[in-house]
C-alpha cells in the first residue's frame, strides 16, 4: 500500500501541476478543445485513482470538478473566468488534501461541502457566487502572474489560508506546493485565516523532511543515455588500464586507480537508478491468483519471497509477462483440486511460491508449486501424439530431457483447455522471452510433489560478461551466460577428442555425444574450406535451452565485460550475431548469438525457425517421398546399407571384450541390462581382441537391441524411393542413395532376430495406390511407411485421427485408409465413424490395425465402420487385406 500511495502522490502532484498551467491556458482561450479534454482527462484520472485507493475526500472534490469540466467539454456550459477560478479553487483544495496525505499518510479531516456545493451549482448552470474571488488568491502561488491576490473574502478562509502558507516560507522547491496538512478543514471551521497559517508551515516542513517526494521523475531516455555514457567510460577505463599495465608507468598508476574506482562507483550508481525491486512485477499476482483460485475451485496460497530483490528496469519489464504466465500455469496445471489434494494426503491449500535472489551477477527467480508435478508418461504420450519426436528417440532420453518438452512450441499437457491456460501457447513463449534477455530457464519436478522453475537472468542487459575467442583469424565474443564449460580438444588420444561421423564433428564428453559446430566453417571464414579440419582447438560447450552443443574455436582469450550494441540495420539479417561491441583495446568485435547458431545448425530444433517451417509445411502429412534422414553403413558385403535414422536410438562403438555369449546368443551389458546383439553378416566372427565393434542400437520402450555392422559410413538426407521389394529376408529393397545402390534394411525383420517378443508387423502390396496411414506411434510409422512404400503404395502418414480428418477437409484423395485403433484423443473407432458419417471418404475401404486381435475388438471395429481388421504383427495379413480391399472397393 505504501508504494501504491507514493506512486499515487507523485502522479497526482504532477497531474495537479499540469492542471494549473492548462487551466490558465484555457482561461485565455476558452474554446481550446484540446486543452479542455486534457484537463478533463487529468481530473478524471485523479478521481479514478483516489476512488481506487479509498480516498473519499479527494474523490468527492475531484468528482464535482470533473462534472463541471464535463459540461465544459460537451459545450453545454460556457467557459468563464469565474468557472475557471472555481475549478482552480477545487484544485487547491485537492492539493491541500494531497499535502496532508503526504505528511501524515492519511487524508486530513475536513469539510469540502461549500466548495462542492459551489461546483455543483456551476454544474447546474448557476453563476457561482461565493468562491468567485477567493480562489484567485490561491492562484498566486503556482502562477504569480494573476494580479490582486489579496482580495480574498474572509468567508473563504480555506483558500486564503493556503495562500498565506504558501507565500510565506516555501523552502524546498518541491514539485508540490509546500505540504499543508489540514488548513482547509480547520479554516472552514474557524474563519480567521491567521489561525491555521502559523501551524501549517511547521507541519509542512516537518513533512517535507520526513516522507514525501525525495524523488524526482526522470525520463527513461535520460537514464538510458547516462547508462550508455557510463558504459563507454568503463570501456575507456579498461583500455587505459590495459595500456598502463603494458608500460608500467608508475606516475600514472595512482591517478588511474582513482579513476578506476570512481568509474566503478559511477557505474554502480547509474545502474542503481535503473534498478527496481522485482516486487513491482509481482504486484498484480495476488489478485490474479485469487481470481484463478475462484475460477478453478482451488485453494491457492501465494507465497512471495525476496520481493525487494532489485533488477534492471528493462529486464523487469521483459520478465513481467512470462512471470505472470508461469504463476497462472502453476496454479492451473500444477496444483490439484482440493479433493485431489486431500486424496493425496496433502493440505487442501495449494501453494504457489515465488522466490527471487541474487546469485553471482544474476538473479534467480523460482516459481514453484507443491502440486502434482510433471508426469513423464503424460509428456511422452503427448510428445508422440504431437509428432515432436519418435518413440525411439524418447527411449534414449533422460527424464530431464523429456520434461523439457514442455518448452517446445505447441506443447501443453493440460488435458482440458481452460480459460486460464492450455491453449498451447505457453512455456515456449516464456522460454523465448527469457532467452531473449540472455536468461535461461530450468525446471525441477517430482511427480506428486510439485514443480519448480528456475529462471536465471542477468542483472542488467547493459553490460555482460563475454568470453573472447578466435576462429579463422577473427575474434568473437560469446556471452558467458550460455557457456557451460570449455574443453580443450587435443589431437592425441589423451583427453577429449574431436571425432567425426563422416564430416560431422562430434565429441564424446562424459558419456554424452556432443554435437559440434565449427565456428570458422559456420561463418565461412577464410581458409576454413581449404585447409583440412584440425582436430585441435577449444570447444566452447554452450547450452541453449535443453540443447547442449559445442562450438569449435581456435583460441580462447580472456573474459571481458562488454556493452552489447545492436548491429547496423543492414547486418540484422545475419542471425549468428546478437550485436557488436568495442573491446578494451578499441577494436570492434562481433557478439555471437548461441540461439542463432543453434538454429542455423539445427542443433536447437525447437526454435522459432522450426515453428515457421512447420507452419509452412502445413498439414501435408509425412509423404514417403519426402526426404528422410538415413544412416548409411556397411555390413557383410560391399553394398552400402541404409536405415532411417529416426529408428536408430544410438550408435555405439563397443570394445570387443565386452561382447559376451550366452545360450547361443550374443549379448552385451548395456546400461545395466543385457542387450542382444545381432550380426548383419551371416557368420559373425568376433574381431580380434582390442578392437571395437560398431553397433546400431534400436530401442523400444525399455528394450534395446544392437545390430552389429562393419562400419558406419554417413548420415544423409535423401528421398527414399525403394525400388523392387527384396526377396532377401531382412531387406525391404534397394534405393539409389548418394548415387549408389543401397540396400534398405527391414528393421522389423532384424529386430525379430533378437527375440520374438519384439513387436511384430510390417507391410507390402501392389499398384501405386494412395494409402493414408493413421498411426500415433512414430516408431510404427517409421516401420510401416518403408514397408508399404516398398509394396508399391504411395503412403501418407499422419499421427492422429484429427489430422486425418483435417486432410479430408483439405480435399486430399486416398484409395485406402489404414488406421491404428488405440490412439489418444480421437481413436481409430472414432475416426472410422467420422469417415463413414459423411464426406468424400465415406466409401473408402478402412483397415484397422491393432496390437491385439480378439473377437470383441473385431466386432467393435466392424461396427464403427472398418472394412477389415488386422493385427499389427501380421505383415502378410495386412498386405493381403490391402489387396483384397482394393480389388473389391466399397464397404464390405
Amino acid at each position: 500500500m505504501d508504494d501504491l500511495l507514493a506512486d499515487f502522490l507523485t502522479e497526482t502532484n504532477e497531474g495537479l501541476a499540469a492542471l494549473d498551467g492548462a487551466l490558465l491556458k484555457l482561461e485565455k482561450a476558452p474554446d481550446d478543445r484540446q486543452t479542455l479534454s486534457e484537463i478533463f482527462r487529468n481530473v478524471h484520472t485523479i478521481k479514478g485513482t483516489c476512488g481506487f485507493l479509498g480516498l473519499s475526500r479527494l474523490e468527492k472534490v475531484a468528482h464535482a470538478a470533473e462534472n463541471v469540466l464535463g459540461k465544459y467539454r460537451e459545450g453545454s456550459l460556457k467557459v468563464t473566468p469565474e468557472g475557471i477560478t472555481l475549478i482552480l479553487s477545487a484544485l487547491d483544495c485537492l492539493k491541500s488534501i494531497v499535502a496532508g496525505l503526504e505528511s501524515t499518510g492519511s487524508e486530513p479531516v475536513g469539510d469540502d461541502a461549500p466548495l462542492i456545493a459551489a461546483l455543483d451549482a456551476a454544474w447546474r448552470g448557476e453563476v457561482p457566487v461565493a468562491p468567485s474571488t477567493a480562489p484567485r488568491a490561491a492562484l498566486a502561488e503556482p502562477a504569480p502572474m494573476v494580479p490582486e491576490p489579496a482580495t480574498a473574502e474572509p468567508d473563504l478562509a480555506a483558500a486564503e489560508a493556503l495562500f498565506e502558507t504558501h507565500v510565506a516560507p516555501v523552502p524546498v522547491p518541491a514539485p508540490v506546493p509546500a505540504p499543508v496538512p489540514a488548513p482547509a478543514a480547520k479554516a472552514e471551521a474557524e474563519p480567521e485565516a491567521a489561525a491555521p497559517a502559523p501551524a501549517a508551515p511547521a507541519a509542512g516542513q516537518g513533512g517535507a523532511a520526513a516522507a514525501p517526494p525525495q524523488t524526482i521523475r526522470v525520463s527513461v531516455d535520460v537514464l538510458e543515455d547516462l547508462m550508455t555514457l557510463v558504459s563507454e567510460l568503463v570501456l575507456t577505463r579498461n583500455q587505459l588500464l590495459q595500456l598502463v599495465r603494458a608500460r608500467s608507468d608508475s606516475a600514472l598508476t595512482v591517478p588511474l586507480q582513482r579513476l578506476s574506482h570512481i568509474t566503478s562507483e559511477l557505474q554502480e550508481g547509474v545502474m542503481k537508478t535503473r534498478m527496481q525491486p522485482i516486487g513491482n512485477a509481482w504486484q498484480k499476482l495476488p489478485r490474479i491468483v485469487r481470481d484463478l483460485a475462484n475460477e478453478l475451485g482451488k485453494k491457492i496460497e501465494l507465497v512471495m519471497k525476496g520481493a525487494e530483490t532489485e533488477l534492471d528496469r528493462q529486464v523487469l519489464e521483459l520478465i513481467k509477462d512470462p512471470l505472470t504466465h508461469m504463476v497462472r500455469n502453476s496454479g492451473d496445471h500444477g496444483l490439484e483440486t482440493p479433493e485431489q489434494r486431500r486424496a493425496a494426503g496433502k493440505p487442501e491449500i495449494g501453494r504457489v511460491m515465488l522466490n527471487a535472489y541474487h546469485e553471482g551477477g544474476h538473479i534467480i527467480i523460482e516459481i514453484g508449486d507443491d502440486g502434482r508435478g510433471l508426469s513423464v508418461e503424460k509428456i511422452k504420450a503427448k510428445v508422440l501424439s504431437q509428432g515432436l519426436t519418435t518413440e525411439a528417440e524418447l527411449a534414449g532420453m533422460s527424464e530431464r530431457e523429456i520434461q523439457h518438452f514442455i518448452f517446445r512450441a505447441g506443447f501443453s499437457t493440460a488435458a482440458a483447455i481452460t480459460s486460464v491456460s492450455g491453449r498451447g501457447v505457453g512455456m515456449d513463449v516464456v522460454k523465448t522471452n527469457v532467452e531473449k534477455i540472455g536468461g535461461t530457464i530450468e525446471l525441477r519436478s517430482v511427480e506428486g510433489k510439485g514443480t519448480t522453475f528456475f529462471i536465471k537472468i542477468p542483472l542488467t542487459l547493459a553490460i555482460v560478461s563475454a568470453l573472447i575467442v578466435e576462429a579463422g583469424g577473427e575474434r568473437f565474443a560469446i556471452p558467458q551466460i550460455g557457456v557451460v564449460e570449455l574443453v580443450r580438444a587435443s589431437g592425441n588420444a589423451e583427453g577429449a577428442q574431436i571425432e567425426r561421423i563422416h564430416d560431422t564433428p562430434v565429441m564424446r564428453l562424459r558419456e554424452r555425444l556432443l554435437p559440434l559446430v565449427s565456428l570458422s566453417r559456420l561463418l565461412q571464414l577464410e581458409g576454413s574450406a581449404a585447409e583440412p579440419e584440425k582436430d585441435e582447438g577449444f570447444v566452447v560447450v554452450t547450452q541453449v535451452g535443453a540443447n547442449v552443443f559445442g562450438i569449435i574455436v581456435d583460441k580462447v582469450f580472456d573474459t571481458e565485460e562488454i556493452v552489447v550494441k545492436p548491429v547496423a540495420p543492414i547486418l540484422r539479417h545475419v542471425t549468428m550475431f546478437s550485436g557488436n561491441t568495442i573491446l578494451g583495446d578499441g577494436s570492434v568485435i562481433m557478439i555471437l548469438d548461441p540461439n542463432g547458431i543453434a538454429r542455423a545448425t539445427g542443433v536447437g530444433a525447437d526454435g522459432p525457425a522450426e515453428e515457421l517451417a512447420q507452419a509452412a509445411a502445413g498439414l501435408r502429412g509425412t509423404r514417403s517421398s519426402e526426404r528422410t534422414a538415413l544412416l548409411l553403413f556397411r555390413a557383410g558385403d560391399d553394398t552400402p546399407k541404409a536405415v532411417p535414422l529416426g529408428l536408430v536410438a544410438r550408435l555405439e562403438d563397443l570394445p570387443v571384450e565386452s561382447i559376451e555369449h550366452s545360450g547361443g546368443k550374443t549379448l552385451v551389458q548395456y546400461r545395466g541390462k543385457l542387450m542382444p546383439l545381432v550380426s548383419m553378416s551371416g557368420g559373425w566372427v568376433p574381431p580380434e581382441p582390442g578392437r571395437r565393434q560398431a553397433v546400431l542400437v534400436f530401442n523400444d520402450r525399455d528394450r534395446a537391441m544392437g545390430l552389429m555392422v562393419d562400419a558406419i559410413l554417413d548420415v544423409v538426407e535423401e528421398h527414399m524411393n525403394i525400388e523392387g521389394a527384396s526377396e532377401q529376408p531382412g531387406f525391404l529393397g534397394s534405393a539409389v542413395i548418394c548415387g549408389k545402390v543401397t540396400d534398405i534394411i527391414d528393421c522389423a525383420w532384424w529386430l525379430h532376430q533378437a527375440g520374438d517378443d519384439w513387436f511384430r508387423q510390417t507391410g507390402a502390396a501392389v499398384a501405386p495406390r494412395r494409402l493414408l496411414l493413421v498411426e500415433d506411434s512414430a516408431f510404427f510409422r517409421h516401420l510401416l511407411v518403408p514397408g508399404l512404400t516398398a509394396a508399391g503404395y504411395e503412403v501418407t502418414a499422419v499421427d492422429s485421427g484429427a489430422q486425418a480428418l483435417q486432410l479430408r477437409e483439405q480435399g486430399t484423395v486416398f484409395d485406402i485408409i489404414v488406421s491404428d485403433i488405440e490412439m489418444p484423443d480421437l481413436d481409430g473407432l472414432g475416426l472410422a465413424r467420422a469417415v463413414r458419417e459423411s464426406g468424400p471418404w465415406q466409401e473408402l475401404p478402412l483397415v484397422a490395425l491393432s496390437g491385439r486381435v480378439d473377437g470383441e475388438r473385431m466386432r467393435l471395429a466392424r461396427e464403427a465402420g472398418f472394412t477389415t481388421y488386422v493385427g499389427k504383427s501380421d505383415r502378410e495379413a495386412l498386405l493381403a487385406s490391402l489387396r483384397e480391399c482394393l480389388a473389391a472397393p466399397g464397404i464390405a
Partner: protein
Amino acid sequence: MMETEMRAAAKARSSAAVMTDSAAEMFLTLTVAGQLCGVPVLAVRDILTAQAITRVPLAPREVAGSLNLRGRIVTAIDLRRRLGLPPRAAGAPVPMSVVVEQGGELYSLLSDSVGEVLPLRASGFAGNPPTLDPVWREVSRAVHRQDDRLLIVLDVDRILAIG
C-alpha cells in the same frame, strides 16, 4: 589531427554557404577508382584515415566491416565493391573513411582519397546520361561539370540500400 581540421573546415564552409549563397550546395569530393564523386557535406559526420576494420562474417559483400569512431560503431561500406569496381591494387594507399549518418546509424564510405569541400552551383548540374553504367546510375543523383572534370553526386541513401 587531420580529421578534426577537415571537419572544422567543412562545418565552417557549409554554414557560411548556407548563409551567403543558398544557390550553391556544399559538397565533399572523393575519388573511387579515379572517378571524382561528391557527397553533400551536411551529410558527412567525420573523415577518418586508416582504421582497424573488423570484418563481419556473412555480411553482404559490400560491407567491409565495422570500425570504432570514438566509442560508436561504424559500419564500413567499400565504395569500390558497392560500385562493382575492381579491388584496390596491393600497396595502394589505405582507403579513407567518409562517415555519414543514416537513421541514427553511422556508416563509413571507404574511398580511395578525399579531396576538398566545394560549393557547386546549381547551374552546373546535369541529369544522369542515359548511357551511364546501371550501377553508377543507381547511386548517382546527378552529374556536375567541374572545370574540366565531371563529378558524380552520390546519393547516400541509395548507396546504403544494400541487401
